[in-house]
């Protein structure tokens, strides 16, 4: 993916670029708001990572300007302002996701990859398929290798989210946000227990596991 980082803290940006490159992405850096706006206008990026507090033009204004011009590149805000209100502000300005500093790199990487994938995803899907696991969103039915699997409503939502982001790492925080709509750090391993129950239903009686734990980051659903 081609990623533009707009961040005035050069050291932080350096770590970020190094990490993203190691994960196989191409990165550009802009160190102030105006430069960032120009690069975002002219370059063909898959994801923008924007710091909220920037010299010359703040991140919110920058993204609002881009969106007004019709630029729909997925954008993720980075901010030291971590309260829920600040998040809402960022999302209203056209941001697609928001991550508070300090963050775990694995969390950021997972979110950036999900955002980059979103751009190319088909708009409406009624069936999801990962390997031999299939989900019918209309009939709300899940089968693996043709065998029906009974899921609780929340388990269904959890699996749907994992299937929509198959091949991507999803973190515990992302799951709590998107499946339960709660925006706090899961303190205990509540999410892990839900995952392990789901795993018991979709993987246990089958040879090849689909739901993998990514150490230090989260989970990934993938076929191979």
């Amino acid at each position: 993916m081609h990623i533009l980082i707009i961040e005035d803290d050069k050291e932080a940006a350096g770590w970020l670029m190094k990490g993203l490159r190691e994960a196989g992405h191409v990165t550009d850096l802009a160190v102030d708001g105006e430069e960032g706006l120009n690069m975002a206008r002219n370059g063909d990026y898959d994801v923008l990572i924007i710091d909220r507090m920037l010299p010359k033009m703040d991140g919110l204004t920058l993204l609002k300007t881009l969106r007004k011009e019709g630029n729909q590149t997925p954008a993720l805000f980075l901010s030291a302002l971590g309260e829920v209100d600040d998040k809402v502000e960022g999302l209203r300005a056209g941001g697609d996701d928001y991550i508070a500093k300090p963050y775990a790199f694995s969390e950021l990487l997972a979110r950036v990859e999900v955002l980059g994938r979103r751009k190319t995803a088909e708009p409406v899907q009624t069936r999801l398929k990962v390997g031999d696991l299939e989900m019918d969103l209309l009939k709300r039915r899940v089968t693996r290798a043709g065998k029906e699997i009974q899921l609780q409503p929340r388990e269904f939502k959890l699996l749907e989210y994992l299937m929509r982001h198959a091949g991507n790492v999803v973190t515990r925080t992302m799951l709590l946000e998107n499946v339960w709509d709660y925006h706090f750090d899961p303190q205990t391993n509540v999410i892990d227990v839900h995952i392990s129950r789901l795993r018991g239903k979709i993987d246990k009686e089958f040879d090849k596991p689909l739901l993998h734990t990514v150490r230090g980051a989260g989970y990934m659903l993938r076929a191979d």
Partner: protein
Amino acid sequence: MPRARWTFRLLKTSTFRLAAVYLVVFAISVGAVLGYVYWQTLKLLDEQADETIAAEVQGIAEQYALNGTPGVLAVIKNRTRLDTGGLYLLATPVGKRLGGNLKSLPANVLNNEPGWIEFAYVVETPRGLTEHKARGFYTRLEGGYHLLVGRDIQELRQFGKIIRNTLIWALGLTAILGIGGGLLLSRNFLRRIDAITATVRAIRSGRMSDRVPLEGSGDELDRLAAALNDMLDEIERLMRGMKEVSSNIAHDLRTPLNRLRAQAEDALRSDDPAEHRRALEATIEHADNLLKTFNALLFIARAEAGQAAAGFSELDAAEVVREIGELYQPIVEDEGGSLKMTAPETLRMRGDRQLIAQALVNLLDNALKYGRRDDEPPQITIGAEVCDGHICLFVADRGPGIPESETEHVKDRFVRLDESRSAPGSGLGLSLVTSIARLHGGELILRDNKPGLRAILKLPRDGKT
């Protein structure tokens, strides 16, 4: 305090100014009323006298036309004898007095045109000769005879003077009494304000326990003093809290920082890459825990300053309870325990859904960590209900509970009971829940669940703080 300065301050009090303004208004109205009466009375009396004089002049002129000067003299003599209070004088064209009770014509009258004049004349009183004021009508009869008919207006003028003096005295007395009363009132007021000021000064100079004395009368100054005392109590409580927190922060943040540093130092001495890796992972874990503590502290500070209420909206508390219960059910069951949920269909209220969920999660974490006896599985109930007009969300366990003497103390920051010191945690969980409750205008109640602990989040429905 020097006497002069005290008096000066007395004059500057609002009570005194109010009294002064009232006094001026009162004096002006009294003056206006009395002045009007004075002016009207004098005018009426003057008019009466003038009418009498005019009638007499008319009568005498008619007499003159009929009987000439002898007739006039006879009328004058008659009137004088009856002592009607009139003054008369008839004189020849050259000014020689022919009759009447006036001794002579007043000076300058001879050259005057006929008309109203005021003059002085000499009267005999038991105390001797004195000069009285008179008002009269002077005219010339046919044939050049001078006629003056008048009235003594000395008494009239005296009367006016008495009224005028009364007026001035009345105003003077009003002013003196008014100023005196104003000073008296402001002295009382000033004395009490000084008591408040003295307390405030004492507190500024560090005597935090000083309080404004109350008179016990329940008047507005007493109410103000009581409100000030309440505020001072609150400030003192907050300051005590701050002191406790800063010493706790020093301990609870320094300890993990120290550990973190020691670990890194230790790893640096080793040449084993596996050891390095292990140390780095532990460092991140320590840093994360520190960040959590910082965030919790920051949140509590913001909540106590009442800044975080922006995210309030309509929500269904019963639904939040069900969702959080459902989120925690698997983990409780994994530990071999049970999590029961009791909530009505819906419980509408105003609040911040995220924060209420956060509070419930903290209470559930506590119940999981501390709410069980030895190796018994946890038995937890999470629920929502209406309780005296409020909404009560509760998490109850059947563990060892908290001694009643400690139920207030454990809500403070960094407080951890000795029994739980060994378990992981920052000691901020219940403070955070307390802050969230306060932000919603509610409270956190810790009660004996017989056995165990029942933590109740009692919140008002309208979310008013």
